[in-house]
């Protein structure tokens, strides 16, 4: 065999393909457990060390949304808070630049963590080459083949679109391009009101773009509680965002300076002119050119890699984690699966991934967070359900922050108080969801949520009060 490029060994206990939030966590966890690990990343436009999450997803969007939040405070709140800002201007370019710096800092952090844990980072495109071998087309040139006792596939996903709405990298864009725009669109249509669509709609609106967001399903944030989605919808409309549910993008005409989008709304077709169209209608797994079929790795009927509760694929010694192994496509799901897969490979004590306790967060204003069953699902699952709600308008900390829009809603089992699901909307609720997620993992009942001292004044008191409300005895409402 040809000599390996420097720093790459002939064989590893574990080769992880993809260095996103699933892959890098799996690699580090396996290295902690004593395995020799290589983590290969193709470092394309879509990724690099840290994957979509750190480069073109979670982190840069949050950075931009912080800029948006500050802009909103300046525009809406500053004067009433006693800060008169006589003159300000919004600099979208600076916001984008800042978001890139945040990304960069974190992706460098991955390299540091790999070095610290002895994980070999390899840049190049990897492919399964049969019998526990991985072939890598190195970014630095040439090919090499690495033996791997175990393999974890963590190649992630990429934005998808509809026929007739192909990405052109300029005016018909995905979230990827939206994070690196050179200019702010005067008007933009966002197709798809899931987490990604809602966050971008909020961000562009804060920078004074004229925003229209359309959603084919009857409700924006279709996976969230109806009441929660209602709070967000009203807030968006108040800020001048056109929100259209039960509406589909139908056709697109590209004029020289404008786009003409025909949308199919309940009241009939409408024509909307805009500068840009952001397609946020879902993501598709990166399963191509990986040699999956030859390696015996099967896909499920929806095209995701088929896995079991420890993320084992149909091929012996090959695991798949994160987006490529199916929804929910969330970084923290991928990371958790990565850790479980690494532990399972080494025989360390682990537990199957509990797919019913994965929290979901949307960082638009107001924020949305949820975990577990909706009221409807809980009833369908045969529970005798009791629901406790507490509005932020009755929470001191929320009022002090000028953020009365929001609520915490707990869906509990009436008999034993099991916390079946929690749905939140409002200021900083993405930080509040951790309490109830831990609670659910420990099988905490509403009695403990309600009976635990919560510091005052905090937003978390709303969780305690919602717990009390399920027991029919909230104090502050």
């Amino acid at each position: 065999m040809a000599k390996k490029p420097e720093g790459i060994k002939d064989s590893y206990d574990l080769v992880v393909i993809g260095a996103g939030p699933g892959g890098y966590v799996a690699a580090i966890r396996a290295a902690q457990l004593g395995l020799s690990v290589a983590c290969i990343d193709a470092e394309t436009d879509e990724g690099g060390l840290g994957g979509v999450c750190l480069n073109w997803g979670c982190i840069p969007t949050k950075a931009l949304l912080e800029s948006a939040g500050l802009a909103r405070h300046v525009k809406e709140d500053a004067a009433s808070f006693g800060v008169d800002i006589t003159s300000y201007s919004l600099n979208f370019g600076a916001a984008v630049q800042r978001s890139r710096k945040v990304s960069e800092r974190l992706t460098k952090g991955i390299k540091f963590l790999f070095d610290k844990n002895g994980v070999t980072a390899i840049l190049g495109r990897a492919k399964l080459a049969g019998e526990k071998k991985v072939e890598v087309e190195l970014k630095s040139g040439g090919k090499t083949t690495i033996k791997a006792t175990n393999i974890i596939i963590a190649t992630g996903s990429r934005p998808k679109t509809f026929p007739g709405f192909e990405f052109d990298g300029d005016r018909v864009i995905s979230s990827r391009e939206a994070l690196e725009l050179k200019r702010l669109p005067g008007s933009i249509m966002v197709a798809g009101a899931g987490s990604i669509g809602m966050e971008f709609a909020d961000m562009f609106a804060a920078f004074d773009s004229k925003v229209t967001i359309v959603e084919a399903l009857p409700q924006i944030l279709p996976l969230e509680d109806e009441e929660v989605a209602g709070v967000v919808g009203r807030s968006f409309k108040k800020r001048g965002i056109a929100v259209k549910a039960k509406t589909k993008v139908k056709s697109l005409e590209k004029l020289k300076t404008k786009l003409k989008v025909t949308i199919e709304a309940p009241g009939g077709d409408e024509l909307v002119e805009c500068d840009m169209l952001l397609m946020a209608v879902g993501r598709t797994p990166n399963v191509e050119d990986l040699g999956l079929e030859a390696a015996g790795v099967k896909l499920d009927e929806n095209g995701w890699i088929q896995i079991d509760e420890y993320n084992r694929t149909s091929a012996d010694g090959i695991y798949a984690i994160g987006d490529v192994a199916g929804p929910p496509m969330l970084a923290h799901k991928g990371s958790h699966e990565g850790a479980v897969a690494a532990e399972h490979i080494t025989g360390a004590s682990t537990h199957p991934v509990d797919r019913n306790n994965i929290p979901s967060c949307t960082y638009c204003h107001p924020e949305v967070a949820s975990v577990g069953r909706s009221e409807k699902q809980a009833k369908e699952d045969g529970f005798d359900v009791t629901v406790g709600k507490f509005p932020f308008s009755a929470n001191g900390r929320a009022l002090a922050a000028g953020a009365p829009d929001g609520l915490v809603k707990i869906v509990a089992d009436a008999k034993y108080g099991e916390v079946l699901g929690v749905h939140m909307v409002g200021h900083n609720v993405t930080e509040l969801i951790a309490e109830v997620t831990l609670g659910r993992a420990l099988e905490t009942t509403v009695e403990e949520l309600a009976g635990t001292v919560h510091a005052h004044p905090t937003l978390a008191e709303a969780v305690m009060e919602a717990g009390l409300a399920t027991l029919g005895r909230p104090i502050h409402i």
Partner: protein
Amino acid sequence: MATRIVMSKLSPTMEEGRIIQWVKKEGDPVESGDVVVEVETDKATMEVEAMGSGVLRKILVEENATVPTGTLLAVVAAADEDISSILAEAEAAVPSTDGDGAATTAEPAATEPEPAAATQPVAVSAPEPVVESQHDGGRVKASPLARRIAQDSGVPLQSVQGTGTGGRIIKRDIEAAISGVVAAPVTAAVGPEPPYQRVELTQLRKAIARNLVQSLGPVPHFFLTTEIDMGRALDLRAELNRSLEGSGVKIGVNEILIKTAAQALAEHPNVNAAFAEDHIRRFTRVDVGLAVAVSDGLITPVLRNVGPKGLRQISTEMRGLIERARERKLAPEEYYGATFTISNLGMYGIDEFTAVINPPAATILAVGATVEKPVVIDGSIEIRSRMRVTLSCDHRAVDGAMGAEFLATFREMLENPLRLVL
């Protein structure tokens, strides 16, 4: 990644185990799930599987040695992996060793403690498998939700095997206990607790329990003997077996006794019970154990939920259990937790005897030989097949009249056995 093979607690009562045979030798490749060693517990022979793959690098306990549960038996690791720290840790944990290579307890030698100076393969104390930890030290690890459901449904947490992290009892474990099915635990199973209804102790009952223990020992026994006319039961058995000829199934007297006991217990549920210190467990299902002599002792395979089962099914299942009992292949859940037990020494020509109760049950029925003897019936002497049985009762749970009423029903059913085949 090195994995340890440890003497796990394979049954609720197991404190030590003996290595029967190493199936794999040092240097053998081992796949996760391979049987590595056969271990004899207090009740059965069990196969211990590797939890990880690699090479069987080191065997620490020789064949025939008996070691306490928790002892590290062997290390599986990659061929070139450094396992010196595990071995050092193991040696350091040994206060002393005895000469024949089988360390027994962790009691330090009074005179010359020789830490880490072992020349023979030695057994060491390693951490208990996590699953077992829940019953140690009196604290039961259980989730708040599991506690609430358990309290509501009367399931004692102590009887439930936890399958959560670190052996914590979680909702699914309680639900499994309620439905009578034990959730698959991470490692070895212990016996399931039959479902029951909790009956709180009255002050009188507590006083009775206290007094009887003081006078008679941990389980205060009393005995009830009766003689049963077996003529019709034997006729029925002969007739059933004629009709089953060629089917491979044969109904024995024990199967008829098991069925009769289940039916009689259904009429006297207060006898299908156990005394549990602060309450009485009234089992809501009849699980009958049958004492079976094996080469070096006695084991009672348990036939679960006898109530709805017919004689034919009882016969088939019991024969399978007995066969495996004799081969010492019973799993703990197959011999633990009978709600009623039958011990039959009739085949040895014993006319009558008393049996010792096997906790947690409150009763055991000792069955003597069926013999032809003269009996006075309606003023004249007849030759009849008669069988003497003695019911041992735990007086804390079962009083004399309760036991007597049950035994009377048992006798009447056997003397009029057609009900059994309905």
